[in-house]
């Protein structure tokens, strides 16, 4: 962050706008501080014959235009349909086909927002890309950028940003990191932003009205192969519709009556078998993760104590992290943890600091 007012006027910041409350308040805060603000909205991919991508409906574009006019900064809608399709949507379907549960928002932040969009911002002479994430970036005494949780524990989105590297963090501004959501709504009112009471967006931006299941049926149906459903003990209890349609921890949609409630425990892609079992069997003492990113770029030489989040809204699980090799890690939980899902991100914290994260392998 820059402190001097004069310097701020000469510092161009691109704000990733969604037309919602958070990014609008970001723009207002930066504008008020004196930055040279440019708003940009990425037009993302959407399926044919489905409603517009939630990130960038015509209405959202008009909302963002109104904010930009009110606050007096230029605003542009940018075409990212192909990039988003190739980088995110294809990854999303591929991951399901491989029997895992994808994390499109993590990859989008890493590769699209703080990849392609940041690059485009730089060609416009911008020093920073600002988003409405509830997280903080600060430089420590070694000159390294640290990623910290947002001050609002309910809204903290540091999990979503754990894949950013030092270079990306050095160009990131998250002005909402110091605020709670309700403070942000108050700010929106104070700045007289007409979007102050707009609802937060839910679910993945590119899914249509019929959600995950509908999307997957349309996009992976050619790969779907029926197979057996077995209990952890090996008892055949039913037939599945194709592994890509199931997620670890899922309970509904199995259509099996059994003496106790059954959950999806694992997807065995080799044998095209869905493994189910009691809730208790979802619990794991450990996990392996790959594609690991350490925020400060340094690999721990010996096992370290951490707090792990295994999904965006999960609680913190005390654990020990051991670096293996080739960006793989092993995490040993202090207590068994339910819902470890291959394909999801695992993020490790020390107090309010993100140490890094990876993609759960098993």
């Amino acid at each position: 962050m820059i402190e001097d007012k004069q310097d701020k006027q000469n510092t161009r910041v691109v704000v990733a706008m969604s037309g919602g409350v958070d990014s609008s308040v970001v723009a207002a805060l930066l504008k008020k501080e004196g930055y040279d603000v440019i708003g940009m909205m990425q037009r993302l991919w959407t399926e044919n014959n489905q409603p517009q991508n939630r990130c960038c409906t015509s209405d959202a574009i008009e909302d963002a235009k109104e904010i930009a006019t009110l606050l007096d900064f230029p605003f542009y809608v940018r075409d990212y349909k192909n990039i988003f399709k190739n980088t995110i949507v294809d990854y999303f379907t591929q991951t399901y086909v491989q029997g895992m549960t994808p994390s499109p928002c993590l990859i989008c932040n890493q590769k699209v927002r703080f990849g392609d969009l940041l690059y485009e911002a730089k060609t416009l002479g911008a020093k920073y890309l600002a988003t409405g994430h509830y997280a903080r970036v600060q430089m420590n005494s070694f000159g390294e950028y640290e990623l910290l949780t947002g001050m609002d524990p309910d809204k903290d989105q540091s999990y979503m940003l754990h894949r950013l590297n030092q270079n990306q963090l050095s160009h990131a501004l998250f002005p909402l990191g110091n605020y709670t959501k309700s403070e942000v709504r108050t700010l929106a009112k104070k700045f007289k932003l007409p979007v102050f009471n707009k609802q937060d967006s839910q679910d993945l931006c590119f899914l249509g009205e019929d959600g995950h299941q509908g999307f997957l049926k349309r996009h992976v149906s050619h790969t779907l192969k029926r197979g057996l459903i077995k209990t952890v003990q090996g008892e055949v209890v039913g037939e599945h519709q194709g592994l890509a349609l199931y997620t670890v921890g899922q309970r509904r949609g199995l259509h099996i009556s059994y003496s106790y409630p059954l959950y999806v425990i694992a997807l065995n892609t080799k044998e095209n078998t869905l493994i189910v079992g009691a809730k208790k069997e979802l619990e794991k003492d450990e996990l392996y993760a790959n594609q690991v990113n350490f925020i400060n770029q340094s690999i721990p030489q010996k096992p370290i104590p951490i707090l792990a989040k295994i999904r965006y809204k999960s609680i913190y699980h005390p654990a020990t992290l051991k670096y293996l090799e080739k960006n793989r890690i092993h995490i040993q939980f202090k207590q068994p943890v339910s819902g470890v899902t291959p394909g999801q991100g695992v993020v490790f914290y020390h107090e309010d600091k993100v140490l890094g994260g990876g993609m759960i392998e098993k």
Partner: protein
Amino acid sequence: MPIYLDYCATTPVSKEVLKEMLPYFSEHYYNPSSIYKGAQKTSSEIRKARRQIAENFSCLSEELIFTSGGTESNNIAIRGIALANKLAGKGNHIITTCAEHLAVLNTVEDLCKNYGFTSTILPIDQFGMVHCQDLEKAIQSDTVLISCIYVSSEVGTIQPIFELGEIAQKYNIPFHTDAVQALGSISIDCKQLPVDSFSVSGHKIHGPKGIGILYLKKNTPFLSQQSGGSQEFKYRAGTENIPAIIGFKKAIEYVPYANSQKLIHYRDMLIEGIVTKIPNSFLTGHPSKRIPYHTSFVFEGIDSNTLLMHLDISDIGASSGSACSVGNPEASPLLLAMKFSEELAHGALRMSFGKDISEEKINQVIQNISNIIQLLRNR
């Protein structure tokens, strides 16, 4: 001070036009259909305006219908003429061209989809020009309407309307031209021009938005598309937009034919500067058969919207020329029809200027574009 280079999109209302309009908002506001003195005044003023415009176009007053703009004029011309002929059992085939504005193309498409018409879309050559032999080939015994744009707004090419219109006359088929982009650059004389109807719009010539005219030659079969009161000779019901009609009249008085030599000079200077200073840049449209204030280009390896964004940040307002929606760029169908590659068609730029253009501005614009394109190509 930003440089505005999108006069084909719209123009500022001139001082003279605004001054002429102002009394008709709160002073002479009376409904022209009413009987009292004030209403007689507004009714007379509309009549006078219509007469003055008719003189300008060398047509009859009763051949001019005031509408809400170019889009409405095109809509009611095509629907009104096509449907009247269909009802009279003359046929259901429409000929138009791929150089048209969406107001024409989408109207013809609607007639085909929902009203039982068929259509032939004429091709264009590499300059965006329609050819007479293509029109002759397309004519069928059941053709009831030919519609061809006068000047393509995207690439500025002036179509051979006289020749095309004469072919239509030879076969006795109603001929409509969308003259929205021609007004102001080309003098329209109905005694000479072999057309049965044309559309023009106020805001392209320093008049107000929300006003257009449909010229409809006397005795052309026409089915009114808007019913209600008896305004506009029962062709187009609705209380008249008096200030806009008065403004349009004034704008037509000031139509800048007189300046065209000066504008052509600047146009050619801009074209020359771009194609010589920027490698792999190409003029689109016809090099000489184009309107005086219009230039259009394609640039290799450039995304049009990105170029426009960079230009805007440098305070230059321009356009790609095609009607694609913001942030949703499809390659221009017109440029593809002109046989430009998909890649080039994505890199279109249209710059259209007014009489405030100067050599200094042109040099500044060329320099800016050159810098931006270099930056974008090197990234």
